[in-house]
């Protein structure tokens, strides 16, 4: 049994690609948590999607045994954090489970906006920071400059910085020693009433919700009756354990421990991240600080291509919701697309991930409508309504004022690219707020920008215009009035509600033109000619025409290769399954997203 003063709870803060996963793997390897054979590259990023995108979506916590240089045994809990702005709150809660954090910064690229945002979260939580400059082996590494930056921006003493290359195993031992020496042991008393912080939870079909907790006070055993303080619900604990990194059952978790518990909890909504678990018999008086309920920021409609899969889609959302309490959905029906769901997400990435998982894991072809934000619409009769779906926007003549959510966007960029950044931000209807030099090269540019513009291709444009150097973080700051109108799209004379969107009046004409042209290219020729129109109210502002299909036949038979012919027909059939009959027109999935992309400059 390792004493509480030899426990170290920490996480790693890093920007995507700065080497967090490599460092985590190295630490796992050195603490012999995994044999070489078990060692998959980047063990912590377990989901396929995470691997593909090189990001961590779900948090993980691993318990490790470490023998320090002075031959003392330590227990490490390494808590992984998601690396994306959509999941800021989850990051803040997992940091709240720690006493320290290893800050990893790329020796060539320096600190990035999101990293900085997470550093501030760590400082908010009073964490001890261990600064590491990683990838010093790279030919373009400039550790001196990056060290200066860390000193200037965060106020870290240059002497405290560890120079490392996780890939080449340089500096990793020093990092582990510093975890021992710098990061305090968890405080708290095992005799106190239980306070366990929920920093993640996932649903297991056999065991119910598996709740990831960090014990801040007291202890919890199998058989205890626990209470979730946010909603007061009570459950009996039937399993307790830690991840090493595979789950290992234990009888008890006590103060300082990081592990999991199950208690036949059926609904993941009950175990909200940030909530406090206590014991029903001897409850804590107060919750741990910082709990908040997350509200979705971005909304879109999800519809099955095949209407018969409506129930499958509902089940898929129910299943995903089990693991993702921030996902919201309600039934929606569209004239064009039939029955589906209006879904709310934390952000764009979150939205994409959910869509991909539905398509991949549940095998449902989806039509996704363009994402929208929540607009506040004040009508001429004085009533104010919230609109999260462009098709439900009141008629323009009934609208007194439309207000939209704004964010404060922080864009960190080398000074050579300040011009393009400002240009994009202006084009996205941004209002300049401030610009500050972090050091001689790096600039923090701050804008207030409508969230709806961020939801479009803002980040993509930012990356392409700054050769990938810009990094970006944002925070919602409130609602402001804007001159917005609803634009409708008509196919073959019919308004397609799922293609309606809300646009600033000044950009309406250009957007309308751009979209009808794009739809003309995206929607394949049909058996008849199809006019595509963009309209505001009754006024058509742009038009294009999809010509009628004249033929679809292969004149040759590939020299007796009937298998090839069959595959071609099967592919064609499969392709049609991914089309949606909208009125009389077959529309491919991409068309519904066309309103998103704005390469009209």
């Amino acid at each position, binding site marked *: 049994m390792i004493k509480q003063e030899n426990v170290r709870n920490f996480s790693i803060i890093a920007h995507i690609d700065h080497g967090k996963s490599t460092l985590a793997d190295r630490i796992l390897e050195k603490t012999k948590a995994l044999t070489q054979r078990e060692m998959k590259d980047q063990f912590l990023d377990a989901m396929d999607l995470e691997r593909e995108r090189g990001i961590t979506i779900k948090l993980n916590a691993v318990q490790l045994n470490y023998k320090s240089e002075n031959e003392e045994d330590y227990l490490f809990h390494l808590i992984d954090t998601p690396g994306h702005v959509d999941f800021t709150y989850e990051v803040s809660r997992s940091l709240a489970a720690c006493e320290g954090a290893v800050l990893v910064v790329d020796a060539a690229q320096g600190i990035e906006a999101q990293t900085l945002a997470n550093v501030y979260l760590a400082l908010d939580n009073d964490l001890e920071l261990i600064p590491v400059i990683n990838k010093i082996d790279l030919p373009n590494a400039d550790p001196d400059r990056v060290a200066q930056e860390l000193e200037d921006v965060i106020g870290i003493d240059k002497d405290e910085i560890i120079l490392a290359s996780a890939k080449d195993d340089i500096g990793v031992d020093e990092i582990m020693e510093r975890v021992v020496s710098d990061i305090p042991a968890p405080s708290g008393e095992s005799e106190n009433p239980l306070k366990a912080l929920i920093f993640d939870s996932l649903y297991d079909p056999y065991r119910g919700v598996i709740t990831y907790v960090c014990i801040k006070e007291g202890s919890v055993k199998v058989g205890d009756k626990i209470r979730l303080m946010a909603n007061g619900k009570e459950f009996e604990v039937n399993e307790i354990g830690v991840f090493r990194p595979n789950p290992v059952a234990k009888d008890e978790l006590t103060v300082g421990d990081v592990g999991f518990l199950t208690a036949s909890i059926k609904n993941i909504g009950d175990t909200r991240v940030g909530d406090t678990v206590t014991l029903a018999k001897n409850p804590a008086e107060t919750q741990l600080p910082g709990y908040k309920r997350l509200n979705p920021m971005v909304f879109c409609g999800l519809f099955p291509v095949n209407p018969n899969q409506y129930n499958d889609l509902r089940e898929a959302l129910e299943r995903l919701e089990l693991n993702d309490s921030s996902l919201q959905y309600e039934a929606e029906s569209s004239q064009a697309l039939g029955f589906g769901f209006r879904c709310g997400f934390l952000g764009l990435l979150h939205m994409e991930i959910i869509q991909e998982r539905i398509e991949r894991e549940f095998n449902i072809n989806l039509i996704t409508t363009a994402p929208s934000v929540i607009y506040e619409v004040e009508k001429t009769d004085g009533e104010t309504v919230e609109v999260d779906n462009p098709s439900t926007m009141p008629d323009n003549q009934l609208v007194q004022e439309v207000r939209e959510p704004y964010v404060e966007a922080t864009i960190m960029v080398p000074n050579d690219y300040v011009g393009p950044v400002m240009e994009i931000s202006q084009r996205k209807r941004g209002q300049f707020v401030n610009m500050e030099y972090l050091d001689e090269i790096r600039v923090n540019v701050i804008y207030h920008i409508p969230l709806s513009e961020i939801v479009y291709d803002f980040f993509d444009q930012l990356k392409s215009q700054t050769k990938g150097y810009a990094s970006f973080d944002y925070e919602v700051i409130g609602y402001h009035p804007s001159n917005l109108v609803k634009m409708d799209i008509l196919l073959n004379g019919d308004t397609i509600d799922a293609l309606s969107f809300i646009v600033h009046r000044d950009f309406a004409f250009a957007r309308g033109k751009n979209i009808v042209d794009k739809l003309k290219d995206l929607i394949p020729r049909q058996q008849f000619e199809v006019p595509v129109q963009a309209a505001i109210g009754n006024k058509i502002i742009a038009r294009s025409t999809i010509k009628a299909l004249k033929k679809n036949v292969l*004149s040759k038979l590939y020299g*007796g290769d009937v298998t090839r012919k069959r595959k071609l027909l099967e592919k064609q059939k499969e392709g049609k399954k991914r089309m949606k009959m909208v009125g009389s027109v077959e529309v491919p999935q991409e068309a519904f997203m066309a309103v998103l992309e704005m390469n009209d400059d």
Partner: protein
Amino acid sequence: MKAQSVYIHIPFCQQICHYCDFTKFFYDEKLATEYIEALSNEVDTQVHGTKNRVNTIFIGGGTPTALNMEQLRSLLQLIDDKFDVAHCIEFTIEANPGDFDEDKIKLLRAFGVNRISLGVQVFDDAMLEELGRLHKVKDVYRSIDLLQQNGFGNISLDLIYALPKQTVEHFRRSLNEAVAFNLPHYSTYALQIEPKTVFYQRYKKGKLHRPPQEEEVEMYAILKDTMRSKGIQQYEISNFAKPGYESRHNQVYWNNEHYYGFGAGAHGYLPGERTGNIRPLPAYIKKAKEDGHPVLNTEAIGIREMVEEEMFLGLRRMEGINTNQFYEKFGFPYEKLYKERIAYLINKGWLEENGENIQLTDQGVLFGNDVFEQFLLEEDDLMLVR
């Protein structure tokens, strides 16, 4: 014998055409000799005995006539040994204008070849060059002359239309020049851009002109009219013949009958399976010499695939599918599986009933792939006939 038809692939060419995605390689004398040896071993292994009865033999390519005299003789000798050429109804070889002389023609004739399929493609030297073809228009005249003088009356002429920069008028002129030969058989294909071709590369980069669909359809209409006016009947989507000169070998494919496929990249259909041979030459040669079984892919053909193929191949024929023949072959009427889909296609104007047959309408031919797709089955569908 598992099949009454034989396809033999000769993958050598003097030049590679820009649209061709068949298995083909630049002609190399040493390699070609080795290839014929390997091919011989493949045929020997798959077909036992000598002088087997077959209905049709087709030597395709590539360019079979790219082989030199000696190689061509070995190939023909091998065929003559294994198969009863004298009783073979149709023995076709593909040839390119200008790449054979009188000696080769006489050799073919001596070994019983009775039909020549000539890759003419277009009557325009500039376009031939664009296609990567070696021959010129004048070679077409010389070659047809030479063939006819040597007793080859049964000639089929291949044309390609909807070529880059080709106009409707240009096609009309080219077609008129083709039918002026008054040959018994014409195959006419719309240019198809296939992966792994020069044209595909150009197309992807947006550097390949293509006539608009509207014009392609117009060319096809002109093709059908012209042929009709000359008494040459359309018997398949892309094939036209004077009565009695329909290609027996090609009908084997559309009738969903069995055939051997020998040579690199060749495809065969024997009871229960469709096979595709190894395509790369060295690999093919090695395997064919080793064990005579150079098959790369085998696709099992069960009842489901058989029915599907019966329909989507059979409908390529203008006569379409005969109700009785289908019943005889499968023991149930096709309506059992396709009643609704046929009704749908008839309603669309793509399919029509004609006595005991169902067949494509003129419009249905243009949307052939959409029609054929309707005949793909789901596993559950077969419950209806079990």
